[in-house]
């Protein structure tokens, strides 16, 4: 047998053995990894709603308890009507929202954000107050932006930036929240301050894409926000018991 044939066969054998190991590791550990990803999503929802403290680590059971007590996942159709059966095919097409509740009293709602980024999709959550206008929190759980530049979107300062901003004018007209090209006070006329957050220097494009993605998402959820703004929570047909996620 020639030397090169031997090398080729050895490489082939090695590849097969290595892939067997990798497949075993990947499929064997999947249940744990999926559970971790779910808890991480729940933690981010709680973090957007301001229900967990920044920089503190919570055990998984604590996250699950908080999520069960304070968050109600629902799906709504594009007109903003709650879809009753959470598992039907019709509701799978619906828009997911998460209500934050305190002893069955709805305090606000959380919208999942999906946006284009510079290097890949950005995913996160935007929490709004029950007035349907005021941002209560913002959290990003998945992005591939450049660390130190666009990657700052997941940092505390940028996220706190969003708290208290308004997605609609005082008259109730939807305007979304934009991202300024620097400090809001320096870049934006004063009457628009409530509708802009400070941008990240060196990450203009990330800001542009994220602002567009948020405007697009909030636009789709506008019927829900209108109901909150008009205080027509009964029209949402809120279920009184917590639906399982």
């Amino acid at each position, binding site marked *: 047998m020639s*030397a090169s044939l031997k*090398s080729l066969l*050895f490489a082939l054998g090695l590849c097969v053995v*290595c892939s067997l190991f990798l497949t075993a590791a990947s499929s064997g550990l999947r249940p*744990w*990894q999926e559970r971790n990803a779910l808890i*991480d999503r729940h933690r981010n929802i709680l973090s957007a709603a301001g229900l967990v403290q920044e920089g503190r680590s919570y055990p998984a059971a604590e996250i699950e308890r908080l999520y069960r007590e304070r968050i109600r996942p629902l799906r709504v159709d594009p007109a903003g009507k709650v879809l009753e059966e959470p598992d039907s095919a019709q509701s799978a097409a619906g828009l997911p929202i998460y209500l934050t509740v305190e002893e069955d009293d709805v305090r606000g709602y959380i919208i999942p954000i999906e946006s284009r980024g510079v290097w890949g999709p950005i995913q996160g959550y935007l929490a709004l107050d029950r007035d349907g206008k005021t941002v209560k929190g913002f959290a990003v759980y998945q992005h591939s932006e450049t660390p130190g530049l666009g990657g700052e979107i997941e940092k505390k300062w940028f996220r706190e930036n969003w708290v208290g901003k308004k997605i609609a004018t005082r008259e109730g007209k939807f305007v979304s929240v934009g991202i300024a090209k620097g400090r809001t006070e320096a870049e934006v006329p004063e009457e628009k301050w409530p509708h802009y957050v400070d941008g990240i220097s060196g990450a203009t494009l990330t800001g542009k894409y994220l602002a567009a993605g948020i405007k697009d998402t909030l636009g789709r959820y506008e019927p829900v926000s209108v109901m909150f703004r008009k205080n027509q929570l009964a029209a949402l047909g809120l279920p009184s018991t917590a639906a399982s996620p």
Partner: protein
Amino acid sequence: MNGVVAKPWAAVKRTASYKEIVKALWKANPISKQILGICSALAVTVQLQTAVVMGLALTLVVACSNLTVSLLRASIPRNIRIIVQVAVIATLVIIADELLKAFLFEVSKQLSVFVGLIITNCIVLGRTEAYAMNNPPGRAFLDGLANGLGYSSVLIGVAFLRELFGSGRLFGYPVIPEAFYAAGYVNNGLLVLAPGAFIMIGLFVWLEHSLLGKD
């Protein structure tokens, strides 16, 4: 048993394995003497927890890849030996990464790409090529462990100082009393940034070189 019982330590000190372990841990420490693996040492030493986990992951990968390569060393064709070594290392690193994602999710998020980058860490390939290809499995495994621990020891030392003086914490727990802050003590922000790690590693290199110089 002649003389070994009387002075067991001296006998141990004469063995080849002992000499090699001391070499890996101290005299030719991968980070502070050979200046290898600096990239990950800069990135994961802001906190002790990430440094410990990274050190553990790397130690396991070096030890196991050394063992595997050493077991296969007679049958690996010379012309593709580096490819074979990298394939073995890559497989082990991905398994380590998957394990971290399953059981230490928070830490694995902080370590992000740096576990994956163990594949390209010069320490690992350096040990398999320079040592495991020419030595029996038991010795190769020990050599891997010792080099991994040599790497971890510097990582943990740097992380200890960076976390203590950079954020006033150890393993995430505040250790500097509030009274210090009230009296005007401030955490050194530079240590949390990458330049802080450079300076710390530089000090470790200096320390080791000056101590070795006296021998």
